């Protein structure tokens, strides 16, 4: 499961893909100057177990709160995701593969990743992040499983207390190419 750093470097986020589509380039065309990447931001992350308990929540650049207590916010988020997931499955006009993956508004995108064991990871980013699937998979496989699931002192189905998990998660998210250090 190593080599993620190199992978992220090569991907470089959406802003790095300049001139990918369109007319083929000739030899005499001027060099493409890539515009600076737009402000890419990660707002927050939720991790739920399959019963709906919020195991972990982290914020990085959240500019607006929901205005309700955190407990209610978690319940609302989980409930909405649960409904969306089953709605997507029912109403899908073609065969389902991954099911519900993300939704976006004009301001942010919510990315969803669910494991077969029912663990749900939710990441809110700005619109320039088209897919956070690999990041969420990494958080699950390399951080959550390694530091929480395999830790005999971490009781299952209880909010994660592990400081190590929190610190590693924070470091990983801040190291993502679509994480902008200053709030836009």
């Amino acid at each position, binding site marked *: 499961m190593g080599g993620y750093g190199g992978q992220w470097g090569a991907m470089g986020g959406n802003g790095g893909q300049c001139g990918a589509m369109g007319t083929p380039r000739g030899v005499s065309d001027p060099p493409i100057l890539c515009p600076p990447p737009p402000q890419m931001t990660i707002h927050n992350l939720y991790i739920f177990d399959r019963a709906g308990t919020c195991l972990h929540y982290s914020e990085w650049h959240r500019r607006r709160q929901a205005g309700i207590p955190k407990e209610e916010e978690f319940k609302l988020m989980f409930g909405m995701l649960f409904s969306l997931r089953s709605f997507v499955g029912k109403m899908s006009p073609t065969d389902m593969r991954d099911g519900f993956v993300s939704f976006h508004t004009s301001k942010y995108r919510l990315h969803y990743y669910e*494991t*077969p*064991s*029912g*663990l749900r990871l939710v990441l809110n980013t700005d619109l320039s992040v088209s897919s956070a699937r690999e990041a969420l998979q990494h958080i*699950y496989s390399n951080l*959550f*499983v390694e530091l929480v*699931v395999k830790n005999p002192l971490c009781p*299952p189905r209880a909010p994660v207390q592990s400081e190590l998990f929190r610190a590693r998660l924070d470091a990983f998210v801040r190291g993502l190419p679509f994480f902008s250090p200053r709030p836009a």
Partner: protein
Amino acid sequence: AMESRELFVLTYGALVAQLCKDYEKDEDVNTFLDRMGYGIGVRLIDDFLARSAVKKCRSYSETADMIAQVAFKMYLGVTPSVSCSNTAGNEFSLILDKNPLVDFVEELPAERASLCYCNLLCGVIRGALEMVHLAAEVTFLRDRLKGDAVTEIGITFLRKAEDRNELVTTT
């Protein structure tokens, strides 16, 4: 991986030996092993999912194959053969040709004739399956340590309440 496997096998043996000291009856040791295995299985499933990156299985048969060919291989380095043992398509048997857990065990002592030495495995499988919404009964049907010709684990998938529409049973 081989070195730590030996340590694991020896540790397992020490565990069973200690349980035999703690519990007089074979059934109690078996139950305890199963319970411990269950506790391991409910966590091991996430490690398995993380490392194997497999998609959801679409049938009991696919699940049984996954257990034998991917999970057993990953954790014990062996690949039991799988067969479906009933027409309804929910009973499977895994035949273990090689079982590393009994590498250092020749035969059960006479006073422990009903001991399911590897019962931990049954608990592990049961716990792991439960975490992916599959209720199952897992037991040792035959055991070389008890004098049978082969070691056979039986998995019976029970009907489950949730996510039924994601499962297609093969007949």
